[in-house]
């Protein structure tokens, strides 16, 4: 890779809040880094931890999970299920040697375009400082 390292971040965004918030950031023409590739999901509660691990294993430098604020979930408590999985997943990723800045859970409502833009901005900067993850290559190199 030539030049500056550009983090690749996979964003799993719930369609009712974070994805709509991201949409608002776009339609309001806010500027923020293009590093997050959003994947729209119906609810963060359906994000199997497998998806996060697979993204990291397949070359993502970070994963952003965006859902509704507690109490706002379209399906009552999907976001709380995510929070429970997320805390346990963070503990495990820490044991794998994956920095906690690389996998983030953020609550972004449909009206918080600004919050989404700033989240992407700060996450991109944090991961830029950490450098590439390159998981597959790391596993092969130290095999």
């Amino acid at each position, binding site marked *: 890779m030539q030049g500056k390292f550009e983090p690749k971040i996979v964003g799993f965004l719930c369609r009712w809040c974070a994805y709509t918030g991201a949409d608002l950031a776009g339609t309001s023409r806010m500027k923020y880094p293009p590093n997050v590739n959003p994947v729209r999901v119906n609810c963060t509660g359906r994000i*199997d931890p497998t998806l996060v691990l*697979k993204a990291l294993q397949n070359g993502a430098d970070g994963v952003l999970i965006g859902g509704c604020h507690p109490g706002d979930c379209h399906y009552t408590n999907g976001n709380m299920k995510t929070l*429970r999985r997320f805390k*346990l997943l963070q503990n495990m990723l820490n044991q794998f040697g*994956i920095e906690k800045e690389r996998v983030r859970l953020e609550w972004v409502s449909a009206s918080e375009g600004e919050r989404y833009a700033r989240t992407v901005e700060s996450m991109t900067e944090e991961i830029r400082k950490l450098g590439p993850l390159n998981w597959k290559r*790391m*596993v092969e190199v130290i*095999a």
Partner: protein
Amino acid sequence: MTNPKIAFNWAASCGGCEIAVLELGTKLVELKDKIDIVFWPVALDFKYSDLEAMPDKNIDVTFFNGAIQNSENEHLAHLFREKSKLLVAFGACATMGGIPALANTKSKQQIFNSSYKETPSTDNPQGIFPQPKFIVPEGELTIPEFYNTVRTLDQVVDVDYYVPGCPPVGPQIGKVVETILSGNLPPKGAVLGASDKSLCHECKLEKTDRKISKLVRTYETIPDPKRCLLEQGIVCMGPATRGGCGAICLDAVSPCRGCYGPLPNVIDQGAKMLSALASLFDADSEEDIQRLADGVVDPIGTFYRFGLARSLLRRTKE
């Protein structure tokens, strides 16, 4: 017609799979007349040179147990693949890395230091360490190279069938051997000797859909022998593990540790268990959730006790 030629081999394993074959009991005696065993290091005196001298595809079925942790394991994996018509990954280590794959949480150097320097029981004042090569008057002696990362058998060579379990239970081994000898072969890549449903389906403990407000480790409690262990706060891998073993650990009120591996179409057993366990957490505040999550003291060792080598991440970062 000549009898089918069968081989057993061990790689990075404890030998339990070999003992499990003996669980066949009298069936083994009946089998004796129907098969020819051409290689079985634990029981019969064959040399690697006998194996190398065989023509290709000479062995009908090889049951290969153990993970691939050093150059000898890898060499034998290739050799058995060449010499066998069917190669069966036998047991948790060959199918998913097993206990040896927990070495993937450490580097080769860390393991070496722990084994030869740091363990309190190590008594080595002269600092004598194994060397990859050593010159003696008779010539050069070598030992196999130890690898940094443990691999499953199918990460090294092509595998025809998988028989999970640490070790596979006796009755299932009998069925597997019968299936293969019958000639009526399942599709390549099939998992034999296990169920397609989760262990919870065959577990007899009473399940009531209760949530967990505190996690306990097995040594901290005496569980109620009638109730689901997960509901009592003990991490049991049942929901994310294939059945087929007959839930024998649960019969002894000991939680499932996941040796039968992931269910069909599951990519990562640990991720599934993590997901299942977290959904049982009875907590809504961030602090309570964190406290429950911290109750899993060793997440990798809990969720990937037998499956780290075939998990998505496969090892820890150094």
